[in-house]
């Protein structure tokens, strides 16, 4: 049927993959030669060697005409890049949009395997960093002065970019501490108070749906593993703990996870919350038409929502997430990204300087907040009067940034990601996510998720601890 369409041919193997791999196999050979030829050009050969690069070397590199390639999906990032190029006229940055998130990572992985075509710097989300450090693809930025920046960034963001031996794998750019956006008008209409605890939240969900069967308190998207990870994070879970290179403990089925599974699985089963996939046409329509009274989201949510649910302007407000323990308010993170340097770069000094400048230079960092509406990762911006004082009319003049700035200080700093996040995400969708959508036993699904991940990790050669 599809014989003449471009997406598949009569080849019995998915041809784009195998063809690319074939071509890259030959490329890999020449890479091997190239690596031996210019061996020693890369000063960060092993992660143990962290001898700092001297200021003289840095000055020299920054004055040498160089072209660097930067893969990023951030719109209009040219403006921030221009600030860098103005300060270092010898360095030219070529900005390439290779897709957002997963599509870019797929291309990056292919280029890394091929040994050619990889950029010097990349946009990379916090959760994807371990996926690329396990393959030794990122450059430790410590020798290039990155450690000195630690104090400028919110503690938990620095924890997210740090390796187990203290490496600095990337520089934080923006963040997504989780909070709750809610419809003030719907809450008022049904006499619902903003829930402070998850118990209150569950009660409100039942009350609201009973009062109006067309409305649900929230939607927990059955395809959104990032939200689940964020909620796990808030609850204090440590689902993935890596130690050394090959040891990992996986506990996505521990007491904390089960508490979460019982809570959300229960609400889904009762039918008092929605479980439809998010960021689809139907989901946008639902937000515009008031099907959901809250959106459990992150700090990038407010700006996003004001662009996607214009019909509801002025009706939304922001609040922290409901808590498990009000005495110790906490939150998790969902989204945000960093700038990392690819280890194979021929110009590690200039590339590392770029990654640092882009996110720590006061003018550049502030521009991300004002131009791209990114939620900042630096302490100074989170206390910046202009930034936290912003009072958008979409939220009835509420100082939304202040709400999320306060939340950011409650995010736990020791949450870790697995070195095989894509697999964890797919397995979650097919077990836990599916149980939410199908209204089956979510706690049991957690067990299946645990088993699938453990099997995968063992097959990949990890030593797996935990249940």
């Amino acid at each position, binding site marked *: *049927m*599809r*014989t*003449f*369409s471009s*997406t*598949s041919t*009569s*080849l*019995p*193997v*998915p*041809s784009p*993959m*195998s*063809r690319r*791999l*074939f071509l890259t*196999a030959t490329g890999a050979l020449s890479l091997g030669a190239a690596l031996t030829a210019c061996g020693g050009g890369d000063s960060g050969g092993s992660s143990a060697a962290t001898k700092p690069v001297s200021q003289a070397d840095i000055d020299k590199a920054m004055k040498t005409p160089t072209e660097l390639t930067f893969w990023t999906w951030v719109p209009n990032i040219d403006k921030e890049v221009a600030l860098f190029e103005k300060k270092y006229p010898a360095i030219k940055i070529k900005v390439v949009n290779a897709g957002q998130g997963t599509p870019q990572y*797929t291309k990056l*992985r292919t280029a890394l395997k091929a040994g050619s075509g990889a950029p010097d710097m990349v946009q990379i989300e916090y959760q994807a960093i371990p996926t690329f450090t*396990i*393959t030794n693809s990122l450059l430790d930025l410590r020798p290039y002065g990155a450690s000195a920046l630690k104090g400028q960034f919110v503690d938990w963001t620095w924890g997210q970019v740090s390796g187990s031996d203290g490496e600095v794998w990337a520089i934080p750019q923006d963040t997504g501490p989780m909070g709750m956006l809610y419809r003030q008008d719907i809450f008022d209409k049904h006499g619902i108070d903003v829930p402070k605890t998850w118990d209150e939240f569950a009660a409100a969900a039942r009350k609201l749906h009973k009062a109006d069967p067309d409305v649900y308190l929230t939607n927990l998207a*059955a*395809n959104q593993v990032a939200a689940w990870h964020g909620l796990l994070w808030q609850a204090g879970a440590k689902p993935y703990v890596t130690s050394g*290179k*090959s040891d990992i403990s996986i506990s996505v089925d521990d007491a904390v996870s089960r508490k979460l599974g019982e809570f959300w699985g229960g609400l889904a089963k009762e039918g008092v919350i929605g479980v*439809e*996939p998010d960021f*689809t*046409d*139907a989901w946008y*329509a*639902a937000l515009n038409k008031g*099907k959901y009274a809250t959106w459990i989201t992150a700090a990038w949510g407010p700006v996003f929502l004001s662009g996607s649910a214009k019909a509801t302007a002025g009706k939304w407000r922001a609040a922290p997430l409901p808590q498990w323990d009000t005495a110790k308010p906490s939150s998790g993170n969902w989204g945000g990204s960093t700038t990392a340097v690819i280890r194979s770069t021929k110009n590690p000094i200039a590339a590392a300087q770029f990654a640092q400048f882009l996110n720590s230079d006061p003018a550049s960092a502030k521009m991300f907040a004002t131009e791209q509406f990114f939620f900042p990762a630096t302490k100074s911006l989170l206390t910046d009067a202009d930034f936290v004082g912003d009072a958008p009319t979409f939220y009835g003049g509420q100082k939304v940034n202040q709400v999320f700035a306060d939340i950011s200080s409650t995010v736990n700093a020791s949450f870790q990601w697995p*070195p*095989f996040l*894509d*697999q964890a*995400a*797919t397995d979650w*969708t*097919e077990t836990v*996510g*599916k149980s*939410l*959508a*199908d209204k089956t036993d979510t706690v049991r699904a957690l067990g299946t998720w645990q088993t699938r991940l453990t099997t*995968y990790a063992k*097959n*990949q*050669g*990890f030593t797996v601890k935990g249940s």
Partner: protein
Amino acid sequence: MTTATTTARARGRRRSAGPLFVAPFMVLFLLLFLAPLGYAGYLSLFQERLIGGTAFVGFDNYVQALGDSQFLHGVGRVALFFVIQVPLMLLLALLFALALDSGLLRLARVIRLGIFVPYAVPSVVATLMWGYLYGPDFGPFAQLSRKLSLPVPDFLSDSWMLGSLANIVTWEFVGYNMIILYAALRTIPHELYEAASMDGAGAWRTAWSIKLPALRPAILLTLLFSVIGSFQLFNEPSLLMKIAPDVISSSYTANLYAYSLAFTGQQVNYAATVSFLLGLVIVIASYAVLLTANRRRTP
């Protein structure tokens, strides 16, 4: 003597002309088909792990795949899809082709174009469009049934999904198959029709006894294309996955499974194994189709 050498030389030239003519094809065939195939076969004999690197494992991957329920279910699902969707689509294509060829339809050109146009729509666009139409909240079918107080059809649910996919694929490819059959019908010599009408055959009789037998090779061709297309089902489920993630898993079809193994699980070697086995399944299925068709021809 001279004549003998010239003919010998001419024969020699003729002998070397053949390989020269097929050379461009053979080069491309070797580079773009056999080499990747060989490379995939080679890959499938290894296992690369995140920890520990690459090791030769012989046929271990194949043993694993043959016992892998995700792979087997994927193949089973596309086989079911093939058995249900393809006869339906080809029957529709055949009916349209016969109707157009009968010359009895008004606006035949417009109808022909209308049936063919969906094929010109990229399958990605077609799937996105159908995905919206299927929507349980704001899709037109759902809204209509709500207006009429009928139960809302859940096109994206587990039990309907294969049918919904079959509908998309049928919509996309019925016109394409119709054109092949229609073109074959146009090649039937007119004398046959004249002879038939002289013998007193009506329109139905002509269709049954002349057109259908003449169409046999063309039908076989469309059937073979359909075997390959069905077993490689990828675009449509991969796109609908976004709006029905709980129904379409990463191993919904065998091709989808190979893709997610390679790009989600980073198990390139195992993905190559699965692809290779899928290729084998397609070869066997195509051969079975050919064999049954030929057996019927020579009783």
